[in-house]
């Protein structure tokens, strides 16, 4: 999920960079064009995506660190390819951790399933994430 989040973050930052570059270069040339604001708007949206991804990532890392420390997160197992992971989450913190996982999962194309105490994360095929478009 972190690898996928990294990919999405780089895409969002690239979106910011290329659209800002369009605005910068056109203003520099003195030929802004009618669609200049659309590039500025796209850059703004991608800043939002990158910010949200960063925030989700930091929240999840924080939750996981706390959960590991107080024993709420007790076991982690995954398949060899890294496309699936199983977590055992107990106690009061379960809902908070799950909420952080779901936020990042939603942005990075990862499906979340709950089975009793188990939380199963599955990395979806490329292109299923929600940060694009």
């Amino acid at each position, binding site marked *: 999920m972190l*690898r996928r989040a990294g990919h999405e973050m780089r895409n969002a930052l690239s979106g910011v960079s290329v659209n800002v570059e369009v605005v910068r270069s*056109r203003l520099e040339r003195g030929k802004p064009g009618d669609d200049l604001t659309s590039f500025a708007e796209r850059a703004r949206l991608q800043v939002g995506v990158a910010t949200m991804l960063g925030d989700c990532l930091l929240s999840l890392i924080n939750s996981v660190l706390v959960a590991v420390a107080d024993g709420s997160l007790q076991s982690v197992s995954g398949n060899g390819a890294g496309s699936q992971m199983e977590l055992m989450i107990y106690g009061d913190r379960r809902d908070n951790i799950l909420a952080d996982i779901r936020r990042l999962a939603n942005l990075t194309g990862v499906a979340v399933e709950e089975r009793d105490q188990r939380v199963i994360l599955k990395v979806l095929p490329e292109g299923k994430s929600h940060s694009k478009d």
Partner: protein
Amino acid sequence: MKRPKVLIADDDRSITEGLSAILRDEGYEVAVAIDGQKALDQLGTEPFGVVLADLKMPKVDGLALLKELQQRAIPTECIIVTGQATVDSAVQAMREGAYDYVEKPLTADKLNRLKALIPKALEKFTVQQKNRELSSKLEGLTHYGELTGQSEEMRGVYQIIEAVAPSNASVLIFGESGTGKELVARALHAKSERAKGPFFALNCAALPKDILENELFGHEKGAFTGSVNEKPGAFEMADGGTIFLDEVAEMPTDIQVKLLRAIESRSIRRLGGKKEIDVDIRILAATNRDLQKALSENDLREDLYYRLAVVELFLPPLRERLGDVKLLANEFLVRYAEQNGKALSGFDDAAWEWILSYNWPGNVRELKNAVERAVIMSRGDKIKASDIMPRHLQRTGEFAAAITVPPGATLADTRRQLVLRAFASTNGDYARTATIVGMSAADVRAEIASLLNGGGRAGESTSAPAVNGAQHPAKPADAAPAVAKASKAPVKASASPKSKGKKR
């Protein structure tokens, strides 16, 4: 001017929209494909010089796209842009034929790098595209300037001419007598920027020393007894054009010194003259001599050799381009039948058998003369073997007693030569040929038939063996200047230059 086309294959709209605008502002025509499959579809219908492909895309990812491009031989240069950069993926992308690899996020520096990479990739694409187009043109080419031949060996020669002609480099043409060295020189001149200038050919072996010197450099009035007028030499007459020095290794060594000086200083002094005359010429030279021997025996000055042989071009003997024999024989037949007012429909089978089995030591010139003689001598509607066979061979029944198999000859080439040689020696007796070579008569018939039906033409036999004849004139083995050899690389061809001499 047509704008170069770039395809962006990425599923992230925020990137494709921004990148498209940047590249359009840079002067490119840009199209977008939102996944690898759509990129392939677009590349299949219209050419793009460069593809910017994301490594991770739905349906067909960047690496799979590269593989497909290779497999389908779709011409384009692919730059991989990825947010999941790893050493492995970079190595794999380059291995699959990517032009380059740029990591996301596309910061200002990386965008600048990408902007700098695209023209370079486009340049590579353009050069390769040009080569592909010219290569396909050459595929069926039977004539080039005044040269005739569609064998791979001759296509290699055309390729070198195309590459070298526009430059001002001196070219030394090697080849046995009768292979068409002067025609190559004419083609080099005709395809150069000097084509509108004069082409002056001089045979260095045909003239005595004093006359050769006079022909090359000219003389002033009163330079020697009987020189009542001044006379410009070949260098002056070829000013602004090309001078072709045939059989240059036969040139007396003291004239070689003067020639070297003229080449280096780009000026000459007439015999009996005091002033230097500037000349703007390109020098082409040819020899049929064993150059190694000529250099070691000081017949050709080494410093002159290096000046003349900036590029070397080897013209293969006719026996090494068996596929061209039939083409040339038919062409000469049509030409001489027309010139002599004869209604000839072709060669009979025995004549073909002889033509294709003879090793033509005098090369194209010998074949041309043999066909001309045969046309004149023939009485029927077809040329017979007795019409075309040289008198001395008819009288003695002489045939080459041995065949030489050079390295690189295939078993099929060698077998064909063996069969043809035996067939010719038995005057076309299939049964006797079969006994001699240890094959069935049916196999002998099939072998002969395959050759008569064009089985020995270009593409099949790329290394026909040299048969009992002189080998290539040897080239200096070490320290040779840039050597251009006939290669199989895609080549450039263009319209034939204006022909002034006879076609060979």
